[in-house]
């Protein structure tokens, strides 16, 4: 895929995302469902990598770019991640004193409610790839509880799940 097209498709995903993490449905639609350029397994690996590393949660678009077009693709992913942020400078001038206007807030709230529904819809196909037995079900359930508690860092949850899976592999597959 042409790097410019990749950038524009990733930009479309980041431009329609609000409140973090909601880029996922658009990325999945364009790259997994429509174009078959990556798999659900790669998508969830990308999310895991971006959450284990430093920086913003939306950084998984860098991994998606890398999977599709190598280093130039990763650069396209990075640019797609930062481009919308530059709009904030323009908005700062335009929206000074207007951010509390009801229709703006209503639009954002409506969009956020729909984004959460879309995220849930996207969890199902990813779960079908990642959940392949009772042990991954247990890991997903414990992780969900840990994330909902908001008391444990994402990095620790993902790292612990990885470690637990390695121990399971050692005991049940190799042993």
């Amino acid at each position, binding site marked *: 895929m042409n790097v410019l097209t990749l950038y524009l498709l990733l930009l479309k995903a980041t431009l329609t995302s609000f409140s973090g993490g909601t880029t996922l449905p658009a990325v999945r639609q364009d790259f997994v469902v429509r174009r078959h350029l990556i798999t659900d397994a790669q998508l969830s*690996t990308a999310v895991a990598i971006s959450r284990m590393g430093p920086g913003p949660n939306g950084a998984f678009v860098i991994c998606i770019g*890398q999977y599709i077009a190598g280093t130039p693709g990763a650069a396209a992913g990075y640019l797609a991640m930062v481009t919308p942020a530059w709009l904030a400078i323009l908005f700062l001038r335009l929206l000074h004193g207007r951010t509390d206007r009801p229709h703006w807030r209503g639009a954002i709230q*409506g969009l956020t409610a729909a984004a959460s529904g879309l995220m849930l819809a996207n969890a199902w196909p990813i779960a079908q790839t*990642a959940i392949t037995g009772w042990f991954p079900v247990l890991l997903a359930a414990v992780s969900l509880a840990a994330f909902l508690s908001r008391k444990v860092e994402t990095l620790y949850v993902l790292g612990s799940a990885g470690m637990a899976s390695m121990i399971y592999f050692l005991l049940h597959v190799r042993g």
Partner: protein
Amino acid sequence: MVSWAQFFSEFARAGNLTLGGGQPMIAELQRRIITERRWLPAEDFGLLYGVARLTPGTTILAFIAATGARIKGPMAGALAVVAGSLPAAVVIWLMTVFFNVWSANPWVAAALAGAMAAVVGLILSSAWQLFDTVRRFPIAIPLFGAALALGVTDTLSPVTILLLAAAAGALQSAKQ
């Protein structure tokens, strides 16, 4: 007058060294720039946060852009985004390359399988936490349900669903 070195080091520090996503990074920037260094008055935080939430994309990067622009002008805001994201992006890129090269190794594959199972929990919790921020909005539940149904059945593209939901939200607020 804020020096360029101080300016970039604050954004680089918050954007690249803080783990846990956008909210902890925003809290760290607020503490360092507004409370400790007093580069901006405390009342600016509401405006900057509001602008960041209304800007599409990653909230923390929009917050960095707006805060940087408020402190030293538009060009500084644009450069602050790069300072606040490029080092972390390079780390993420290197991690992706590493996992690509080593994914065939059974130990790395086992670790990734565990992390991927945890990602399912992460997505479910993110969906709930996102919905929780708007659950008192009068049409939040119908919009959530409609988006879930349309997303599962692939009836409309996610972008169309989000734009329709934004229009419905604006109309609902206009009616109130």
